[in-house]
């Protein structure tokens, strides 16, 4: 790997590994101490590598330095001997025996257990995503703020509060007991699902950042797949969903960052390898009796990997949406179902269904009505698109709606 990419890459991957392992060792109440040591390790790297160049094995160098820093901290009788040391279960009086286990297995285990700790039901979903990005993915506060279209202060406050709650609740960094794992896994999957969506639908202009969010969500989901107790049908269904969506990543925006709608995408550029991975995990997910929303959304996403409109495709999608709405109603799913109706039974039928929804503060509702009326009543179509335009928040969305209106007027 070229030096230019090596450093950011090391920061992203190794920072989070160090924090997970150290935090597991110290306990969640000392999450900041773990972050400090990880940061200091990189500070030492900065000071040494800039003169001496990058060592042969930079990862081993970082781990060795981090271990020494822990020992130094403890021997310095800093906050450690007074505050942390009594709580470290395996701490003996001899500092020489302190052993931070930075083996691959312990790193993976620590990250997984950390994931469960951070996705604790006591903190909000937004904070769970933010903390996961910071602690497990090594994202900077700036990057998180950018992804959430927020500012540094807000994110810092949010993360600080979330850490306080974890501390107060004495959340343990451990695997939940066997009896609770399914329930706790549900929260973790929701967080990963939202993390992925944050990247996939984020309005942030930073394309690389958005793709990174998705890749991190995929990486963390893989961690769950690789672990026997969390490799459950729902986990596989979620991963399948992510694979199908990711396959279109390259074709969703043009070089100016403008959105390219599904119908205008070049399907030859869809990532076929990801699609076949998605199919594999979707098959894996069917080994069970439960059907989650991830199963249904992944199945819908699967049908969308076939670009050509066929009767079979839209009938299947419609049924999947019907099922999805029964499990968990959401206005967007209801709108999507209406679109599927138009594809299966025609626009008139879909308009009747759509107008029942009355989602009058939802831009997509009016966009859909505009789309349905387009060839039936151009006045109504324009009126609906105009309502959608006034409700749309982002420039890229407004632009798309404007183009649609112009097309009708031509």
């Amino acid at each position, binding site marked *: 790997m070229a*030096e*230019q990419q090596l*450093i*950011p890459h090391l*920061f992203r991957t190794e*920072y989070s590994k160090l924090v997970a392992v150290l935090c597991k060792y110290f306990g969640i109440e000392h999450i900041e101490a773990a972050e*400090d040591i*990880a*940061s200091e390790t*990189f*500070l030492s*790297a*900065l*000071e*040494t*590598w*800039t*003169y*001496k*160049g990058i060592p042969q094995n930079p990862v081993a160098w970082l781990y060795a330095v981090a271990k020494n820093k822990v020992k130094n901290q403890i021997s310095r009788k800093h906050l450690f001997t007074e505050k942390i040391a009594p709580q470290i279960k395996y701490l003996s009086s001899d500092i020489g025996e302190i052993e931070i286990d930075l083996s691959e297995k312990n790193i993976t285990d620590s990250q997984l257990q950390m994931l469960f700790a951070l996705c604790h039901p006591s903190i909000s979903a937004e904070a769970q995503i933010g903390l996961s990005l910071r602690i497990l993915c*090594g994202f*900077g*506060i*700036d*990057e998180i703020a950018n992804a959430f279209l927020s500012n540094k202060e807000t994110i810092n406050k949010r993360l600080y509060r979330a850490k306080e709650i974890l501390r107060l609740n004495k959340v343990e960094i451990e695997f939940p007991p066997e009896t609770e794992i399914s329930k706790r896994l549900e929260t973790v999957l929701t967080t990963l699902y939202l993390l992925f969506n944050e990247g996939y639908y984020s309005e942030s202009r930073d394309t690389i950042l958005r793709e990174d969010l998705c890749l991190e969500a995929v990486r963390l989901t893989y961690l769950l797949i690789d672990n026997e107790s969390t490799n459950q049908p729902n986990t596989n269904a979620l991963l399948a969903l992510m694979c199908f969506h990711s396959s279109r990543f390259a074709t969703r925006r043009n070089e100016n960052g403008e959105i390219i709608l599904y119908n205008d995408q070049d399907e030859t550029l869809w990532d076929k390898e990801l699609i076949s991975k998605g199919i594999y995990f979707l098959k894996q997910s069917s080994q069970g009796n439960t059907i989650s929303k991830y199963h249904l959304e992944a199945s819908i996403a699967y049908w969308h990997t076939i670009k050509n409109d066929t009767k079979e495709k839209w009938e299947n999608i419609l049924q999947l949406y019907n099922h999805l709405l029964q499990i968990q109603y959401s206005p967007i799913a209801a709108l999507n179902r209406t679109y599927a109706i138009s594809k299966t039974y025609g626009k008139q039928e879909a308009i009747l269904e759509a107008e029942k929804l009355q989602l009058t503060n939802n831009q997509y509702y009016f966009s859909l009505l505009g789309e349905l009326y387009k060839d039936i009543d151009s006045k109504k179509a324009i009126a609906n698109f105009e309502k959608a335009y006034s409700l749309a928040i982002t420039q890229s969305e407004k632009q798309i709606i404007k183009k649609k209106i112009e097309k009708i007027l031509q």
Partner: protein
Amino acid sequence: MKEFVLIFRTSANPDFKPSAEQIQQMMTSWMDWMNGIEAKGQLANRGTRLGISNAKVVMPGNMVTNGPFTEVKEFINGYMIVKTNSIDEAVKIAKECPMVKGGGGSVEVRTAVSSDDNS
């Protein structure tokens, strides 16, 4: 070609704790800078960083004190040696140093006096 020693003086607060991404940024810019000098064949010696903790000052009268670093405004935290035709070229290099460009320190440029140069 003459050799010039670049002495880095930092005015940064030693308690300043940069975030991981700031460190990443700093490291990338330092490496870019040093690699650029090396690529032009102007790097005579990469030099070394001088540690801040674990420092002593030895004075006459058998007096040894800990480094007075926290009391002074600026402390030397490293050096490197470049070779250029003139001090102006060395200054040009120093101007590009991330420490100067980004603030947080200054670079002192000193001629390494050779035996045939008594100026």
